[in-house]
């Protein structure tokens, strides 16, 4: 390897490498290669679960959502045409699965989760900080869907506005608008 002035080149190369592997797996899975799809699921399960946890706020729901997402990926991967990045596609499916789960909950009138202040998942050490942070999380999760998605994608997942826009299938400016609206809604809390 030449360690010439191309500093950024080597950094970009490692990232590109991971992407290239995912890309190759996606192509193989789309062609019906079960092994590749299994690898792909293993590679992505952790991230799907973590995302679902942030949106739902508890492990049980997050596990349900992650499983739904795995099933949907299995059904739809053959039709994934690669127009958007695989990761944003997975995000979109995850957010949709969260929404479905929560809508079906609402229909059955179960609001238990929203009222829980401190979940047993939390470490007991920093209870106080956790309490304020929990309040913030609870408030964010109660936001209207679009605002919640925008805020969590930008702040919890630390994506750019452009990336969030791609996932939510809206314009970049609209993401900023939703974040702005969310701030207004949360003003009392922040």
């Amino acid at each position, binding site marked *: 390897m030449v360690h010439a002035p*191309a500093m950024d080149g080597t950094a970009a190369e490692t990232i590109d490498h991971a992407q*290239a592997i995912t890309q190759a797996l996606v*192509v193989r899975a789309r062609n019906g290669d079960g092994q590749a*799809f299994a690898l792909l699921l293993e590679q992505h399960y952790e991230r799907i679960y973590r995302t679902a946890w*942030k949106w739902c706020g508890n492990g049980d729901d997050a596990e349900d959502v992650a499983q739904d997402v795995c099933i949907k990926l299995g059904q739809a991967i*053959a*039709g994934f045409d*690669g127009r958007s990045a695989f990761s944003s596609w997975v995000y979109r499916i995850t957010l949709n699965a969260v929404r479905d789960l929560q809508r079906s909950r609402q229909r059955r009138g179960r609001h238990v989760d929203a009222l829980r202040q401190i979940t047993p998942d939390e470490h007991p050490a920093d209870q106080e900080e956790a309490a304020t942070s929990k309040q913030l*999380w609870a408030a964010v999760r109660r936001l209207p869907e679009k605002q919640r998605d925008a805020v969590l994608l930008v702040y919890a997942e630390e994506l750019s506005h452009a990336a969030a826009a791609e996932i939510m299938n809206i314009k970049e400016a609209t993401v900023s608008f939703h974040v702005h609206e969310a701030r207004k809604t949360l003003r009392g809390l922040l």
Partner: protein
Amino acid sequence: MSNDMPGDPLNRLKDTSVPPARAEARQAALAAGMAAFENSAAKTVNAPKGNPWGRRLKSIINFPGGKTIMDMRLPIGTAAIALLVLPLGYQLYLTTSMTQVPSPISETTAPAPAQVPPPRQDLAKQPQDSRTQAPAAPEPLESEIGTAADSAAMMESMPAPPPPVAPAPMLSQGGAAMEVPTTSFAPMSDMVVVPPLPAGDQFTSFEEQRLKLVAEEPVSTFSIDVDTASYSYMRSMLEDGFLPEPDAVRIEEMINYFPYDYPAAQDAAVPFQPTIAIYPTPWNTRTQLLQIGIKGHVPPAGEDKPANLVFLIDTSGSMDEPDKLPLLKRAFALLLDQLSANDTISIVTYAGSAGVALEPTAATNKATILQALDNLWAGGSTAGADGIELAYRLAEQHKVADGTNRVILATDGDFNVGIEDPEQLEDFIKARRDSGITLSVLGFGRGNLGDDTMQALAQNGNGNASYISDFREAQKVLVQEIGGTLEMIAKDVKIQVEFNPAMVSEYRLIGYETRALNREDFNNDKVDAGDIGAGHSVTALYEITPVGSGGELVDPLRYGSASQPIARSGEWAFLRLRYKLPQSEVSQLIEQPITSDMVHSDIAQASDDMRFAAAIAAFGQKLRGSNYSGEMSWDAIAALARSGRGTDESGYRNEFLQLVQTAKALKPDAVPAVN
């Protein structure tokens, strides 16, 4: 935006601790995913499910007295209208679109095989097209056209559907389709095991340059080519996991995509000097590669020639995708940073919305320009607008005497610019070119790209055809090369190489299939050829077989040749270069013998640029499935490219290395390399 605000409480959202998922939940999820995957894979093999009667369920309510007349009127009426509208639509399609463009380079080149537009390509695509469209139109039509008696009989024979539950499965099916982002994939019936190639992109078909005998055809003539569209198209295909079709791989455009460090000429009067080298061919031990590189003179930075740019932007509905109009808008801001107060920009739209979107405006007036750009919208079908005439009229009105006047067409394949006949359109562009206004084409998106038309228009307009696949590419074309693509330093550049039969027995030009010229065209100043911009570099490679190397593919003549060559030992070939200065109509000539002191006996001695160019040629030939590509493995190509990577400040060469790996995954070497 405000994410960087210190003390922003929303920033706390990022450091949350997520407890790990339970191992059994993870296992269950992965297993469920696999089951779904296998299930859907199996489903694609089976016949599609549907109503066993082959007809649509028309009503969930069972009318006791048979069918009411209302029920039949609507479908019959629809069918009648459809029968009326379909031929009309087809007629409209034939008369207004330019899908069947004849030869793009008819004026400039020899009657090479490249020029016959292949009906084969269109035919090959038809099954694919009809497959994707099939689920949409014809099915309901067919089931509704049936006679009244027929359908009444059918309704009678149909069992009574259970009224309250019937809608439920349909609803949930619709819901499932909505849940996943529907834009990104095809309906279930389209799922096939082989990845569907994006159909609809049109390419000029060409045959690879053949091997030629020096004894029979000692002279090779071609026009330079500074387009790069083929490389970025190929890259975007590979990155998405498809192999580009052979006609999409134009090796000279791939080689010329990369900047090379040839010494540039010092003087604008003689705007370039050739750099020549001969070194062993990496894919054939018995032959040599002859590399000819030229780099355009770069005018001193102080000189700021005015530019008058008219953007002609396609705003048809298909442009409203993230990699099209929005990408153009983002790239535009970068372009504006490159321009100065004596440059003007105007914007004309066609298709969708039509007319002048921005009157000529000084390029420093960024707010106005970006505002106008933001107001562009993509939507609607094609309105018959005279977009191209309008664009040229604006360019004419604000023509600058001593600078660049250019129309830049940005489209995803809809060339319905107001002149229907492709030949007429080319003539129109040619006539304007002669009056000093050139044309460049920026191609966006995939699936409908008229690459052949793009090439034809840009070649007739003396401009460049570039394919913008992503933001990085937009930056390269609009920002880094803007000096080159805007300021022409020489036009109608032709290259002619005469080989010495005493030294070279066979030769083959790599690439430039669509740029071949007749021998007599070289000295004919009326024959158009490619232009070169400031700082552009152009590279041509010949694979040559030295006399006595044993690498000849053609057997020698039994009775020898008639004429005795003039013996000039030590000279391999003779290079002639013709060009015209921008303001002149008379060509200048540069001549240079190619002598033995330009020969490197080992490819390792050749410069980085040369090794890299050779690696791209090998890559392109392998990707195309060339007859001459030898046995070189992807790894060997990657190793050669890596050895020629150099400092690679822009990172393009590193990216190429990645592409080789992708290509390797998609088209593995048939036999593992035996050492």
